[in-house]
């Protein structure tokens, strides 16, 4: 009886959590007459890929397709990942491998800057982008997202670096390897899985960002996908089938990536609190 109640509660929670995702995918597969019918069907009666074909082949605005926006987003996210991965690896090695005077101060700095409300930095960053002549360019976003993803990336990566046994590097040093060689040939391959996890985090940050993309890029051809979606699909006569197809294409990579790294994200966010 008690078990039944627990399982029932579990099912309710599962339904609440997963339903919107299910409904997004289900709607994207329904033909328009099912989407706009008076009685919504729980499962598409005649599943169709027409909305996917619509958004993948049609122009959202003259000359610009969904795929263009998708590629803008990919470009921005990948550049962010590469840059922040490199810089974060260096910094993480410093804090995980060395005891130096300003180490604790740096760790505190990392925590504090993670908590700066980025929404509050739109105006001064807009000023900076204007002065650098980067307004209306994708590098303006890459630069911004690099700053945003870096602190947490270092925080996450330092655990991975610390987990590599120090003795391995010492052994390499004895064998006559230089610092740079040890770094490249011993530390780097062992930290690679951590670097992947961190990269995924940076990717998701850049992929999902809306406000800065909305503010720094005015040229429709250079919109990232989130901006394109609010802009073209946010109107009153919304074509919900296409919106849901676009949303699905936008969401699925994130979900897949996210599931790969969520464990690390939890421990990174709650820091020492949940060490098991």
């Amino acid at each position, binding site marked *: 009886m008690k078990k039944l109640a627990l399982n029932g509660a579990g099912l309710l929670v599962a339904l609440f959590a997963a339903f919107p995702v299910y*409904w997004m995918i289900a709607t994207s597969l329904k033909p328009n007459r099912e989407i706009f019918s008076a009685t919504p069907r729980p499962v598409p009666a005649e599943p169709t890929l027409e909305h996917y074909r619509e958004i993948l082949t049609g122009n959202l605005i003259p000359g610009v397709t969904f795929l263009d926006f998708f590629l803008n987003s990919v470009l921005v996210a990948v550049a962010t990942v590469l840059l922040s991965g490199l810089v974060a690896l260096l910094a993480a090695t410093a804090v995980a491998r060395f005891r130096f005077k300003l180490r604790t101060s740096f760790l505190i700095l990392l925590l504090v800057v993670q908590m700066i409300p980025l929404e509050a930095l739109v105006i001064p960053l807009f000023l*900076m982008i204007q002065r650098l002549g980067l307004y209306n360019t994708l590098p303006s976003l890459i630069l911004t997202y690099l700053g945003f993803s870096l602190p947490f990336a270092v925080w996450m990566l330092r655990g991975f670096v610390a987990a590599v046994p120090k003795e391995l590097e010492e052994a390499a040093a004895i064998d006559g390897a230089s610092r740079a060689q040890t770094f490249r040939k011993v530390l780097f391959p062992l930290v690679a899985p951590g670097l992947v996890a961190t990269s995924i985090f940076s990717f998701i940050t850049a992929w999902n960002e809306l406000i800065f993309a909305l503010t720094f890029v005015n040229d429709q051809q250079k919109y990232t996908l989130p901006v394109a979606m609010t802009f073209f699909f946010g109107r009153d006569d919304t074509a919900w089938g296409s919106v849901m197809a676009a949303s699905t294409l936008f969401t699925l990579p994130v979900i897949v990536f996210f599931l790969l790294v969520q464990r690390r994200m939890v421990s990174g966010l709650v820091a020492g609190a949940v060490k098991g």
Partner: protein
Amino acid sequence: MTTLTKATGEAAARENPARRRRRKVDRLPYLLLLPCLAIIAVLLLWPLGQVVMMSFYKLDSVRQLRGDREWPWVGLANYAQILGDPFFRTVLRNTVLFAVANVALTMVLGTLVGLLLNRLGKKMATFVASCVMLAWATPALTGTIVWKWIFDDTSGLVTWLFNKLPDGLSSTLFGRSDWTGYGWFNDPLMFFAILTLVVVWHSFPFIAVSVLAGLKSVPGELQEAARVDGAGPWRVFWSVTFPILRPVFGILVVLSTIWDFKVFTQQFVLAGGTQDRSTFMLSIYSYAEAFSPPPKYGLGSAIAVILTVILLVVTALYVRMVLRQEDES
């Protein structure tokens, strides 16, 4: 191990000026930190200082930002204008009430789900946890778009559901029986209710997973012993589980507060932009003042500074808690 130490010693002895090598090593960590520090300074700290500075100027054109025109200093005038504006008090009240309600709901729901996951059988727990992960992984943007579709005024699921209610019941309870065309987002209170639903849906999974991770590290025998001694589930939670998880809860409350204070994407998408002033909260208010024509960057900066100050106070608490735990572990 001893051979290794010995070998290192020998290597150092063979390495000619060993002292110079050590001094070089000392500088290396700073070198490694340099790019990271530079980026943080330029992209986070400099703008932070800049937003404070801009809040003391009258800035209302892009030309001023480009440096083509002067910046007239106005001192505290922007703050005086904001703080004297009854609308700001409404926005502040909205923000605080929203954050308090959302943190409370997220924490309660998240904790309950965490406890539930801990009690479920293995298969069921995996299934529920996977579903919960889906809500967490969904980007704020698309999650909100889907909820907007669920509340669509003609073909939305909720509209359909309310239309299904017996007419008599619906009329007595809500004063209407036909919900087609009902603007779910038009009434501010209803808007905030839906926004709360969306935000809680997005954020309870993180709480649930963190609480579950905390519970797994608590020795089960303690709770078992309490139960054997006749304590009910309520008592077991407050007297055994909660005290052990207190540090986790502390951090979770602070993080949730920070996140819920600066909700932007969900608000922006649900409201369809920055037109609906009756539902403004601090971050969207600051954004709208600065970027909706005519631009008022100085005024927007002042609002951003107020938001930042509130969050920095909360952050100070967070940093203290994390550092204390770093020391302990």
